[in-house]
């Protein structure tokens, strides 16, 4: 893969934004059918930091991400991006979902431009596609490329608006194991290039250990943050580095798995 080399020419730098979550709770429904998904979450994320939200399914980690994106509204509490409260869609964020969610009627290049909200031109899209290794596929339709390539295009779209914060909701969960590893390194490359703050949701402990500066472990639904784990390990990380083993064991134990 020549990704790091090709992305060296990328000229998309952003002002990374800090994110502050202040006493956020989220309840779906009302009355007796109300379900508390997040309770009293407070979290400070520094500009340029890579934070992974880790937790069992249904723990509300995606909801937290969607609150930061402005796709959901907190029941109580506030989310601040770059010091300004999020209300409605937060245009300082680029979002990547679990599925590529490309518009099937637009070319790969035009799909990337959707992320720029009309602000970027085709050259910028070409640069981004180069950064994610999709040069030569600009004019292809989403259905003509593989799932991994579509997800790379989605990543390029997420970056196209030069977002201060890149939000990723289990972005690699639907990819095959090898593609997933490649995409993780690609994400680290583009994050390093652009300098965006990255918040990524996953239930994959190894993914969290490979990517994160900090892992925020959420407990069972509605119980809030269970633990925050700093991963003080230099990059590029060796996935099988023995130094990561104690952290992995600790996290697995937290999910009830004792190796």
């Amino acid at each position, binding site marked *: *893969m*020549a990704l790091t080399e090709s992305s060296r020419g990328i000229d998309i730098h952003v002002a990374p934004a800090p994110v502050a979550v202040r006493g956020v709770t989220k309840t779906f429904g009302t009355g007796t059918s109300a379900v508390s998904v997040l309770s009293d979450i407070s979290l400070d994320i520094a500009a340029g930091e890579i934070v992974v939200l880790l937790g069992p399914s249904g723990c509300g980690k995606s909801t937290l991400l969607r609150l930061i*994106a402005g*796709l959901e509204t907190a029941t109580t509490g506030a989310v601040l991006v770059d010091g300004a409260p999020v209300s409605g*869609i937060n*245009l300082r*964020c680029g*979002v990547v*979902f679990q*599925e590529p*969610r490309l*518009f*099937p*009627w*637009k070319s790969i290049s035009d799909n990337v431009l*959707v*992320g720029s*909200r009309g602000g970027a031109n085709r050259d910028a899209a070409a640069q981004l596609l180069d950064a994610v*290794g999709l*040069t*030569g*596929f600009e004019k292809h*339709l989403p*259905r003509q490329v593989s799932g991994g390539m579509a997800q790379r295009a989605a990543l390029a*779209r997420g970056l196209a*608006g030069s977002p201060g914060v890149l939000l990723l909701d289990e972005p690699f969960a639907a990819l095959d194991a090898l593609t997933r590893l490649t995409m993780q390194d690609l994400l680290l490359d583009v994050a390093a290039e652009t300098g965006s703050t990255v918040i990524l949701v996953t239930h994959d402990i190894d993914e969290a250990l490979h990517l994160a500066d900090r892992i925020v472990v959420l407990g069972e639904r509605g119980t809030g943050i269970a633990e925050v784990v700093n991963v003080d390990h230099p990059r590029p990380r060796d996935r099988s580095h023995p130094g990561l083993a104690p952290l992995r064991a600790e996290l697995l134990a937290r999910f009830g798995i004792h190796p």
Partner: protein
Amino acid sequence: MSNVDTGARRTLNSSVGSLTSVTRTVTTVALGLLVPVSIVALWAYFAGTGEFSTSQLPSPGDVLWAAGDLASRAVLWDHIAISAQRVATGFAIGAAIGIAVGSLVGLSKIAGVIIQPTIGAIRAVPSLAWVPLLLIWLGIYEAPKLTLIAIGAFFPVFTTVAAGFRAVDRNLVEVGRAYGLTGIRLVTQVLLPAAAPTIFSGIRLGLAQSWLFLVAAELIASSKGLGFLLLDSQNSARTDILFLVIILLAVLGKLTDFLVGLLEKRVLRWV
């Protein structure tokens, strides 16, 4: 990266693809003609046995002759032209209103709640029940015919457009919202293209309905058109012309559907 390999394979595929696609088209057309040709053959056979009188079952030759006769007196073209014009106008009106109201109902929940039950009730009225009222209100000339055809075109277009907008993948809408699209831009850039395939199938259904309603409209009060020709040939026991009109309706219906299909292919290249 394997860009180069993929590119080479693509060119190879496309040249092989165009060859096989020609053969495939020829095969498709040939297979599609199999049944009509067999029907004509059977028809010619039965007409030739002498079992039936020509007023019961004219031969294919009789029908061709009738066509030539009508054409030579320049009446056939008039009938076709006026019918086609009625379908075009009525369909355009009905489909336009269908798209407008369907979009409203499909895009706005509250509009759906308010309008949907009424339209459902109106839809339950057998469409021909409107005829007497239309004749009283609009006279016996073009207006009631066009209105009836428009009613025929409206319902399938309305229903599919509304359903099409409602069935748009919420995930795609969310992407649009997440990247700052709202209001009319969300509609034109996400909802409309996403609903377009369904909208097109509604348009095709509406067009088929239009031909159906054309015949109904022209059977009622007219002195021109294919529906009139049907009634007139029934009254004068010209079964050959009856056959001719039925075949013409089949061909015209299929032809207009084909034209819309071509347009659909052009617009929905990404499907």
